[in-house]
Every structure is written in C-alpha cells, then in structure tokens.
C-alpha cells in the first residue's frame, strides 16, 4: 500500500498526546482531567466498535442493510438536532424529515450521476458527512429561530396586528434562521483548500490517492454539503416556526 498505515506501536506512542492535554489541565488547574480521560476512552471504544461494525457491514454488501444503517444515522442526528430546539413541538419529527429529505435528494444525485456507488463502503461514509453536517445546521437554525421569536416578539406582534398571517409575520425570522444554518457550510466552501484541507481529502491523500483525484472528491463533498444544508435548514425552519404560535395564531 502506498498510503499510510498506522501500526499498533505507533498508535500507542501517539496516545501519549492525551497526556499532554492532561498535563495542561493539571498544571493550569482546569479540572478537566476526568473529562479528558472519559473523552479519550470513549473515543477509542466508539471508534473500535464502529470500525468492526463497518467492516461487518461492508462485508455484507447488502443495500438493505446499508439503507438501514443510514436510517439509523438520520434517527440519531434528528434526536441530537431536536435537543437544540427543546421548545419546538415535534422537533424530533421535523428534524428527521428535514435531514432525511436533504440526505435523500443529495445521495440520489450522487448515485445517479455515478459519482459514488450504492455500496456500503461509499454510501455510509458519505452519508455520515451529509447527515452530521445537516444536524449541526439544524441545531444552529433552532437556536436562532428560538432566540429571534423571543427577542423580536414585538416586531412579530406588530405584523400580526397589521393583519399579517403567521407566515408573513415570521418570514424574516425564518430566513435569518435558514441563513444561520447555512453560513458555516458556505464559509467552509469559501476557504476550503486555502485555510483547511478537509478530513476526507486528507484521508484520501494519506491513503495514497493522488491530490488531484482527492480534490475531485472534495469538490463533490463541498457541493453535497451545500445542497443538504440548504434543503434541511429550509424544511426544518418552515416546519418549526408554527411551534411558536398557538392554534389561534397568537405568539406563545
């Protein structure tokens, strides 16, 4: 193999880097030693577990199982995103629909265009990127929409009093929330390659793929993240805004 392969010995030596973090925490009295230790142990256990699970699934080469795995990812991401908008009624359901539709549309384009194949080794890592990006975007959307409905309450009520229905009264807040969800992805698209060499590209290069080929994949990743974030943020915000009104179209 042309690319990097980490041996167990090297990995053990690399583990000493955790002690660097522990040393800083201890010397600066940050009281983070326990957190760092738990974090490091969890990272190892989770990654080892997921490594074996993925190896098993990749070996199965089953489309149904791959789909089930992606479904499980979306379910978890929706649960996590919903926790950022606790006062949003049906937050979990809205997040699930938003992430699932965003991921489905993007994955369909990738598969139909021939950019990736519907095999576990391609669909699962790509879905992971898409779903986690959408999850973070939704978390930002929910935080923004919740904060805006609180801080811009007078503005919304003024619009309602002028005869606006709930959608026109909320449209500026909805748009701001969608924007907030999308901006990090747009910013990283603007700086990709200049400020950062993203994980996927770095991984491919380390594994021996030529940088020019790795760049093609990175372009695909950048575009797919943009599309998923836009779709998911749009759906989630348009579903969530009604949670801030009661059945009589009054702010709660």
């Amino acid at each position, binding site marked *: 193999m042309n690319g990097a392969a980490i041996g167990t010995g090297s990995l053990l030596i690399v583990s000493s880097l955790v002690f660097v973090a522990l040393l800083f925490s201890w010397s600066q009295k940050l009281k983070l030693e326990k957190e760092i230790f738990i974090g490091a142990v969890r990272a190892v256990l989770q990654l080892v577990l997921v490594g074996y699970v993925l190896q098993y699934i990749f070996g199965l080469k089953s489309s149904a199982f791959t789909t089930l795995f992606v479904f499980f990812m979306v379910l978890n991401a929706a649960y996590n995103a919903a926790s950022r908008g606790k006062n949003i009624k049906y937050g979990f359901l809205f997040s699930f629909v938003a992430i699932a539709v965003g991921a489905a549309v993007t994955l369909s384009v990738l598969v139909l265009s021939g950019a990736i194949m519907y095999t576990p080794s391609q669909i699962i890592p790509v879905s992971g990127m898409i779903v986690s990006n959408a999850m973070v975007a939704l978390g930002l959307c929910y935080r923004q929409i919740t904060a805006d409905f609180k801080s811009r309450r*007078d*503005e919304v*009520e*003024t*619009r*309602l*009093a*002028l*005869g*606006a*229905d709930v959608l*026109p009264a909320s449209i*500026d807040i909805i748009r701001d929330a969608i924007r907030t969800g999308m901006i990090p992805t747009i910013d990283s698209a603007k700086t990709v390659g200049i400020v950062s060499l993203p994980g996927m590209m770095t991984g491919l290069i380390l594994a021996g793929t030529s940088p020019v080929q790795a760049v093609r994949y990175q372009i695909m990743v950048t575009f797919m993240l943009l599309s998923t974030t836009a779709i998911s943020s749009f759906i989630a915000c348009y579903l969530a805004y009604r949670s801030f009104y*009661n059945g*009589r*179209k*009054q*702010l709660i």
Partner: protein
Amino acid sequence: MNQLEFCNVSYCPGGKKVLDAVSLAVAAGNYLAVTGPSGSGKSTFLRLCGCLASPTGGSILYDGVDMAGQDSVAVRRRIGFCFQTPILFGDTVEDNLIYPYYVRRQKVDRMRIVKLLELFNLGGQYLEFPVRNLSGGEKQRIALARALVFRPEILLLDEVTSALDEDNMQTVEQAVAGLHADGVTVIWVTHTPARSRGYADTLLTIENGCVVSQEALK
C-alpha cells in the same frame, strides 16, 4: 349594539393572574380611555381586544360572536392597533405604509397613504425617508398612520403619545377625535387620564387586573 363585550374574562398565563373576571361592554362608536398604574393589566386588556392573546377564562364577544370562534387574522384586519414602542420594519417609510396592502394582497392606494401622512403632520416626502433616521415621535406617527391604512372598526392605542411633544400630542389627539367622530370605536390606554377627559366618552380604571371604576364622561 355592543361591539366588544368582555364576559367574566380572566387572563392567567402559567397561573399568574394578570386580568381577573373583567366584564364590560363597549358600544360601537364609543371612545374609551383606559387608565391605571403600571403593571395593572391595561396593555393585556388591549392585547385581548386585538386578538393577540386569548382569555384563559370567560369570553370576548366581537359584534355578538365569540372571538374564539372567529378567524384571528380576519378579526385583526378589522382592528387597528398601535403600540407604545413603535416598531418600523424594512428600509423606508413607504415599506411600512404599504405593508398592510402587501399582507392583504391588495393594490397600494398611494393617495390614501399620503393623506394619512398629512393627517399626522408628515408630508408625502416622508415616503422615501429611511426609517433609521427618524426620531421617536416621527416613528410613532408613522406607526399610527400605518395602523389606519385600512379604516379600522376599532382603534386600539397603547400609550402612543408618551414619546411625543405637546404639538404632536395634540395632532394625534385631534386625528383620533376625527376618527371617532367618523364612527370608529377608540380604546386608548393612557397614563394621562386628565387629557382624555376632553375627548373620551368613558374612563375605565384597571388596578391589579380588575376593573375598579367605569366613569361616563359625556
């Protein structure tokens, strides 16, 4: 006929008593001044009238029909509401005055807008002014004009003159008196009841969420 009728209305969101067993009737064309100490429930009373909140007990009848059974947006379109702190949106004054047309999907009547600006001592040239450059008094008068774009059946005013100087205060009082003379029902929450005596038909005093007096002035 009573245009607005509060039947044993209470408002206790989250168990906190804001209005308690309020019963009163406002006849069509009446001019009601509402007064009382800060935090007594005056603004809440107005919000209930304007369908921005619903009673937690009792019912409010609008033209004899329970508001709870009516479409809130349709009810609000029959009522003009101006708040104590005016909120203008968009970039220019025009953006604000065309907003009521925009939400009703109706064609803008520019003549009507200019007339309303003139009613509040503001000329048509104000249409192009950016809202961020306006004084508090100008903002309040534009907010009033905006609330009147479609002639309301009931006009709800929440301490709208508190940021105005004497001249503009008189302009607003005269404009409202003109609307009242034209048949519009006015409910004006005010911290200067003495001034209202010159215009209002009834003076309502609210304290601790209860109506403590209802005095006929005319």
